[in-house]
């Protein structure tokens, strides 16, 4: 996000003024925040909007998203059916709004679960050599299985439910978080202040709480945001190919899966959930990009 004037070749640009000066008073806190972190502001605002939409779905002019009306099948968008109706006569607008709940629940749950489990495994294997060797081999193996396929295999062995979708995606994501945390821990261990703490006999839990965790949280938080975005795509993908959320529950992937057969003649059934899914994921990704730039300026240039 650096918009510095182009540095002359061979010279490193001077540090950005924004990083050096204290925030100016006259703009006010909110205004200043938007100016300094526009991506976080925009992404965060849009994510909040979607969360509100999901929570207040019943009050936003929706009807029962599962109510069948065979006589009014595949109506194009109109005053009655804002986004049209599907092949069973269900209101696509209502289904899309309620569908946000599934996407957001899956996204946030996976982010929280994968981040916590990954944090735990990463911390343990970063500190205990014997565990490290075994655990990281297993993680390498797991990472060699493309995550969607791993989730598909797990879903094939369990009953379709939102919880199982969350578990399957979480398991596929854990190795990446563990690797990240372990990497950070290994670098931190080499830091003089941590070595000094170890040498002076500070107990391991104290070292982890005081020195390691605070430094690990920022990268994990950023990673968790990206996991949230990718989990929403994964849920939709799994549902789309029939290995995800049970078909009775309206999720964006399910709405699209049902609209698939008719997409050439009634594209709007697929179109609306697709747009909502894409914009939600985009918002979360923007939030993640912004947080990465803000929390870790060194990482900002990479990836």
């Amino acid at each position, binding site marked *: 996000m650096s918009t510095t004037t182009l540095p002359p*070749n061979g010279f490193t640009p001077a540090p950005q003024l924004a990083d050096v000066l204290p925030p100016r008073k006259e703009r006010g806190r909110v205004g200043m925040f938007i100016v300094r972190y526009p991506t976080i502001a925009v992404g965060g605002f849009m994510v909040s909007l979607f969360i509100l939409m999901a929570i207040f779905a019943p009050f936003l002019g929706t009807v029962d998203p599962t109510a069948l009306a065979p006589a009014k099948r595949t109506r194009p968008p109109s005053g009655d059916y804002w986004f049209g109706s599907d092949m069973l006569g269900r209101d696509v607008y209502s289904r899309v709004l309620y569908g946000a709940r599934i996407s957001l629940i899956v996204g946030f749950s996976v982010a929280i679960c994968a981040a916590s489990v990954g944090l735990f495994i990463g911390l343990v294997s970063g500190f205990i050599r014997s565990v490290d060797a075994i655990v990281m081999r297993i993680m390498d193996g797991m990472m060699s299985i*493309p995550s969607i396929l791993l989730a598909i*295999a797990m879903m094939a062995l369990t009953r379709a439910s939102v919880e199982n979708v969350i578990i399957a995606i979480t398991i596929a994501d854990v190795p990446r978080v563990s690797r990240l945390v372990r990497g950070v821990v290994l670098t931190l261990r080499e830091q003089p202040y941590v070595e000094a703490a170890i040498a002076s006999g500070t107990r391991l839990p104290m070292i982890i709480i005081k020195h390691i965790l605070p430094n690990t949280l920022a990268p994990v938080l950023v990673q968790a945001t990206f996991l949230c975005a990718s989990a929403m795509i994964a849920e939709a993908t799994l549902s789309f190919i029939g290995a995800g959320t049970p078909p009775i529950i309206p999720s964006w992937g399910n709405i699209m899966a049902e609209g698939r057969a008719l997409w050439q003649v009634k594209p709007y059934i697929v179109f609306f959930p697709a747009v909502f899914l894409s914009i939600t994921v985009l918002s979360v990704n923007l939030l993640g990009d912004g947080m990465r730039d803000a929390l870790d300026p060194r990482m900002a240039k990479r990836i």
Partner: protein
Amino acid sequence: MLAYTVRRVIATIPVMLIVALFVFSLLYIAPGDPAAIIAGDQATPDDVERIRASLGLDRPFLIRFTEWLFRVMQGDLGVSIFTNLPVSHMIKQRLEPTYSLMLLTLIIALTFAIPMGVLAAWKQGTWIDRLVMVFAVLGFSVPVFVVGYVLAYTFALQLDWFPVQGYTPIGTSFTGWLSNLMLPAVALGGAFIALIARITRATMLEVLSQDYVRTAKAKGVGQGAILFVHALKNAAVPIITIIGIGFAGLIGGAVVTESVFAIPGVGRLVVDAILRRDYPVIQGVVLMFSFTYVIVNLIVDLLYTVFDPRIRY
């Protein structure tokens, strides 16, 4: 050089073993009774027992795993519950469309992503740079099947430039093959292009500030050669690394893309198998794709030595 190659090849063996072990043990880790789930809700207790026996769930884990591993090494991935055909045979029949799709996607992605990343780094801070970055965020955010439908609707249904779906073997007609795969490959390539363009930009930014780039300029090398010869070769290692890692996403995306465009590949096979709860097929496909992924990353490891003379263990 040879030692390095041998070492890398040997290093993949434990990874493959762990992959096999993990895929195999899913049956045992799964909560509930997988035999009952695979048999479905209408199954009789006899059906469940038959499936349990065919999956070998009635025998001890280690014995069963060793037997299974030996058969896998001989190319025997078991038998489909639904068709009773050997899984390896079913996969083999469908490999061509899948590998064709992935290969074409890879070619398209590299052709666009690398120049995009290089250009963005060169023109850092300009509208070109911003455009590439916006594209990158979009590429990460829009799911492959959404891109697929948008492309199919626009270029196949409305403009009629390409067939809506289907597949033509390359042996039958090259142009047919290409026109069938063009839209799927572009759809599948979106996220991959975003990934590669982003890492290319980031790495190039770092490389372009190095002293040797200034040296090259000082001896009269033109801008194009500076970017694509002097700088890009130095940026190659991170770029091919991300290509290797991103290949997992490519495989996952291929499964979905084949469904959108009705391409009779391995991805379709696994999607059909999900609907039929045909676990041996799913297991076989997961294993096949994981080995593909491991081998792609082995190739990436070996390519390091081509691009960076300093890497030599």
